[in-house]
């Protein structure tokens, strides 16, 4: 899809708008894993009539929103160890089955955060490479491969101004060639075999993006 097919946003997206955008793009009836952190906010924007079923890696399909205060169940949490609820039609299973479900390609969409994404779809989101950092990977490497479509939500530039959509990741990889689409505050990118396609822009233009990124862009 070229950028001309959609109205261009006039200013960069806020976090909430990004989450709403991702939610809009998830096909009805999908089975979806929202990772941990920012991507979990996508749940707040899914419409009930979308019929999306949420998976959490710790062993549940049919995860519902945070419970009302005082109704938390310590034995019902999401992957971020936050209390959640159970929706009708839910099911529970053990960790081996939960990751088999992901690794086997049974989920439709997974939404993840990232430090860097390469033009070829490599993902770096578990380790900054800092020598004194204590490494921790959790389910990140499984999630990176764990769905038919892997979406990333991230800011397009790091705090120091360097792009996070790069020709080649400099941070340690989480997965190789696994990312299908990247949502940022300035644009949405499809990572395709033929290259990086700008799908939509927000408060910027294709030419501005092309000037700021080292990655060749396609319209």
């Amino acid at each position: 899809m070229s950028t001309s097919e959609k109205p261009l946003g006039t200013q960069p997206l806020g976090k909430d708008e990004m989450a709403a955008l991702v939610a809009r793009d998830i096909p009805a009836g999908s089975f979806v894993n929202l990772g941990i952190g920012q991507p979990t906010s996508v749940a707040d924007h899914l419409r009930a009539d979308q019929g999306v079923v949420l998976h959490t890696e710790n062993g549940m399909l049919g995860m519902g929103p945070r419970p009302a205060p005082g109704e938390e169940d310590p034995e019902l949490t999401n992957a971020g160890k936050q209390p959640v609820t159970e929706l009708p039609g839910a099911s529970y299973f053990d960790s081996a089955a939960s990751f088999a479900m992901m690794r086997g390609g049974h989920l439709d969409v997974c939404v993840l955060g990232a430090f860097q994404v390469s033009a070829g779809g490599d993902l770096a989101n578990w380790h900054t490479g800092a020598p004194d950092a204590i490494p921790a990977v959790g389910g990140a490497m499984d999630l990176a491969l764990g769905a038919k479509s892997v979406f990333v939500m991230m800011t397009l530039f790091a705090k120091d101004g360097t792009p996070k959509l790069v020709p080649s990741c400099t941070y340690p990889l989480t997965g190789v060639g696994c990312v299908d689409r990247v949502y940022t505050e300035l644009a949405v990118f499809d990572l395709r075999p033929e290259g990086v396609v700008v799908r939509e822009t927000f408060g910027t233009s294709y030419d501005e993006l092309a000037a700021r990124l080292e990655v060749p862009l396609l319209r």
Partner: protein
Amino acid sequence: MTTLCADPDEAVAEVRDGSTVLVGGFGMAGMPVQLIDALIRQGATDLTVVSNNAGNGDTGLAALLAQGRVRKVICSFPRQADSWVFDGLYRSGEIELELVPQGNLAERMRAAGAGIGAFFTPTGVGTPLAEGKETREIDGRTYVLEMPIHGDVALIGAHRADRAGNLVYRRTARNFGPVMATAATSVVAQVSEVVEIGDLDPETVVTPSVFVDKVVAV
């Protein structure tokens, strides 16, 4: 044959120095808190602990680590906001860490329990966690060879047991319990309640009695 133990101390009495101990739980859900506390009192040392996390705060696994009783941790996510005990030991080189992606961690224990000698998984390929490991392309996709993780002992938390040792779990507290129960030579389960044989619906048993050696109600 499953033994009903009077208390958690009896349940962990036979853990030996140098053992590999599988510890269930994802965060606090399914964490066998009373068994870990009993293991701290019991005194076995030079342990290898296999668990999703590496302890939080100053209690439970963290307290076991703080006593210098754990030589090595095999886990997926040691670093947390309150993992200062592990962090300190790791930075000072006093504890060994084998970091394993969570799905590979579960699958490696599943392999141990299922008699699988090794398996090719796509998870981790091309990352630092696959460095030095055998890889192979199968049907156009690259996989890395991963080996089973056997435990000498598994400490798990379940919801309910019958006197035969059949277990059911509750909600997301199920997590690593069922797979760890298959992967260890001796399996100890703490449960909220022990019921009579025949009181669990055979269709709903998650961990069959054959896997469970000791049960203690807490």
